[in-house]
């Protein structure tokens, strides 16, 4: 997992498989970085994510709440087709948009 700030947005490059087991570490690291870097928005890069089940949806909803408390928003980009499917099955689509690239995401979130 990689973290970096672009203006007030914390970009999180997720990696590998997102399930109930791996969500524990993801949640901790994202929340810690979000507080430490005093970020407002959260942007998840899904390029290197190879699998995500409904535990990942729960994790994203939790991060949505975190950002909302900080007055920010949350976005996703580079979402693989398989993962787009589970996003559509849930209603997280209403809470966060999947952008086609980082530039577009940053512009919309700013």
């Amino acid at each position, binding site marked *: 997992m990689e973290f970096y700030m672009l203006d007030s947005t914390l970009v999180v490059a997720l990696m590998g498989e997102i*399930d109930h087991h791996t*969500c524990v570490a993801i949640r901790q690291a994202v929340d810690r970085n979000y507080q430490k870097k005093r970020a407002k928005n959260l942007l998840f890069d899904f390029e290197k994510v190879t699998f995500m089940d409904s535990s990942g949806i*729960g994790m994203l909803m939790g991060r949505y709440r975190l950002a909302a408390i900080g007055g920010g928003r949350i976005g996703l980009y580079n979402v693989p087709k398989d993962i787009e499917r589970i996003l559509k099955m849930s209603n997280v689509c209403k809470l966060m948009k999947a952008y086609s690239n980082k530039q577009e995401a940053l512009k919309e979130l700013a």
Partner: protein
Amino acid sequence: MPKRNEMQIQFLSQSVNEAFARVAISAFITQLDPTVEELYDIKMAVSEAVTNAIIHGYEDKEDGIVAIKCGYQDKVIDITIIDEGKGIKSVEEAMQPLYTTSLEEERAGLGFTVMQEMMDEVEVCSHPGLGTTVKMKKSLEK
């Protein structure tokens, strides 16, 4: 000749075994030469059922036993996930989209919905105090 095969595995109810279950089922199903999408669907459904056994069935106690039975006949795959955990009071209610009993945790309540979406048939049999059995079926395309 019709192709037929069966396997069974069991493991302790530890979350690290969610990935193990996906890898094990993939290795077995690969014998049927599924498409990438079909394999992904099956991994998703198994991941959901195994996760449920671990977090809901055994409530994060790490010494429960989760069993997976899988068999195929030609292109029809049967997968059963069994736990001897706390069971479900109302299966009908539990299977509603967005329904979850883990309120303090970040659960989406979509596990059963995902299983139904990924597989052709999902059948849940559960008795409070005795455990839960999830039976799923999927036919491969070609």
